[in-house]
């Protein structure tokens, strides 16, 4: 029957709409379901996983020593040239010339956080830090020198 089908269509449509409205009302009445994070306020409690790839850093120990030998493996591994090793030759105690880094220049503005340099590094000298607030007003501030001034290579790292 045409009329019955017509009315049934209206009824089904209304029920389907009511079900949707019930779901939105459910959430309206339950503020506990809110998942918003209050970002700048929760900075202190923000917990990033240890593998999060924020930027490349070079850890130094308390004696201002790092593990970088200046082998340039990271520079070769990097797909967009964000790492640049500027090295020098140091004279060791035995009087031998030894390759060492002068500066490890890191272009954060080019970096895509692909982790290939970390994988490539044979002496685990660099790692990914969990920082992520990188915005600055001047692009030149994104060019970083990873080794601290006056630092030198750790004993026993070849």
């Amino acid at each position, binding site marked *: 029957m045409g009329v019955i089908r017509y009315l049934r269509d*209206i009824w089904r449509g209304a029920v389907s*709409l009511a079900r949707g409205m019930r779901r*939105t009302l459910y*959430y*309206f009445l339950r503020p506990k379901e*809110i998942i*918003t994070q209050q970002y700048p306020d929760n900075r202190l409690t923000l917990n990033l996983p240890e593998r999060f790839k924020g930027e490349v850093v070079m850890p130094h120990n308390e004696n201002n020593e790092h593990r970088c030998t200046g082998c340039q493996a990271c520079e070769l591994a990097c797909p967009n040239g964000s790492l640049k090793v500027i090295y020098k030759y140091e004279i060791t105690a035995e009087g031998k010339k030894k390759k060492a880094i002068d500066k490890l220049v890191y272009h954060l503005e080019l970096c895509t956080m692909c982790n290939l340099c970390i994988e490539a590094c044979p002496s685990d000298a660099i790692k990914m830090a969990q920082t992520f607030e990188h915005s600055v007003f001047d692009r030149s501030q994104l060019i970083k020198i990873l080794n601290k001034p006056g630092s030198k290579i750790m004993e026993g790292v070849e």
Partner: protein
Amino acid sequence: MWSFQQAAQQIHEWLSERMSAGWALALEMVLAGLMAIGLFAMLGLILVLMERKVSARMQVRLGPNRVGPKGMLQTAADTLKLLLKEGLTPDGADKWLFHAAPIMAIVVSMLLLAPIAFAMDFQLWDVNIGVLYVSAMSSLMVISILMAGWASNSKYSLLGAMRSGAQIVSYELSAGLSVLTVVTLTGSLQISEIIRSQADGWWIFKGHVPVWIAFVIFIIAITAETNRAPFDLAEAESELTAGFHTEYSGIKFALFFLAEYINVFVLCGIGATLFLGGPMPFHIGSWEGLNRIMDWIPSSVWFFGKTFLLIFVIMWFRWTFPRLRIDQLLNLEWKYLLPLGMVNVLLAALIAIKGWHF
């Protein structure tokens, strides 16, 4: 007990003592105008904030919470921003119409406020064709939208305006028919009469099936008339970017925005008056205790409470449903709502003649 009516009366007496009747009337008109504008601004701020909070809660998020306590001042800040923004006029726009359209929109929604009863016996203008006046005025909204769409010299705006024209013209019928149901039962177009007829019970309770159907149709029709989702085809963000106000910015955009919310308020207020008794308190037959408590609540609270309930329902629609397509929108009106509304008026007439309603 304090009420708006008494306050108005006192002001009137105080003024009449001090000056001639003509001056008193003029001053009262100025006062009423200022209050209308104040109400306007307040409603705009409150409704926008309410919409944002309601949508946020439905969308499992917090909504504005930075400006002021719990984000209360967010809309004020937004308004300030819109006031300071540059108002762009597109090249090739019909300048005169382009600037006139938002003003037209706001004037229409201001005119709509006139016959609304905000509290018992508290109206700006108790015209004897109050309901008819509201229907007539609310149809004028479409003119401002058409003006905006045509004058913008933008194809998106034009499409939005054309959609809006078709939409408002057709939904006006349904809204009219459902209003007619209540008018049939009441026998008057005057708003104060309609309110008084509900002293022994709201129409939604004593009007049987026809009033329920009329109420549902009315809610759908005013959602469509005010261009709100799921009938926001004139704006249709994902299709026409912003529809008829694509080219508007700054304060002119804000005026459109404000007019939309005021229209929602006014039409919901009419709905509350017609179906839910307006400022009439909620009474249950012989429960004297309850009735007295209900009477104690001021009538303005009743009116605003009911209106905001309806506004919430409309917001609830908006944040739940997807948008209709233009042909479906017209199908819904002409194939479903209009026949239903017509049958419904006949039914209401039958009930009114036979006196079956309570």
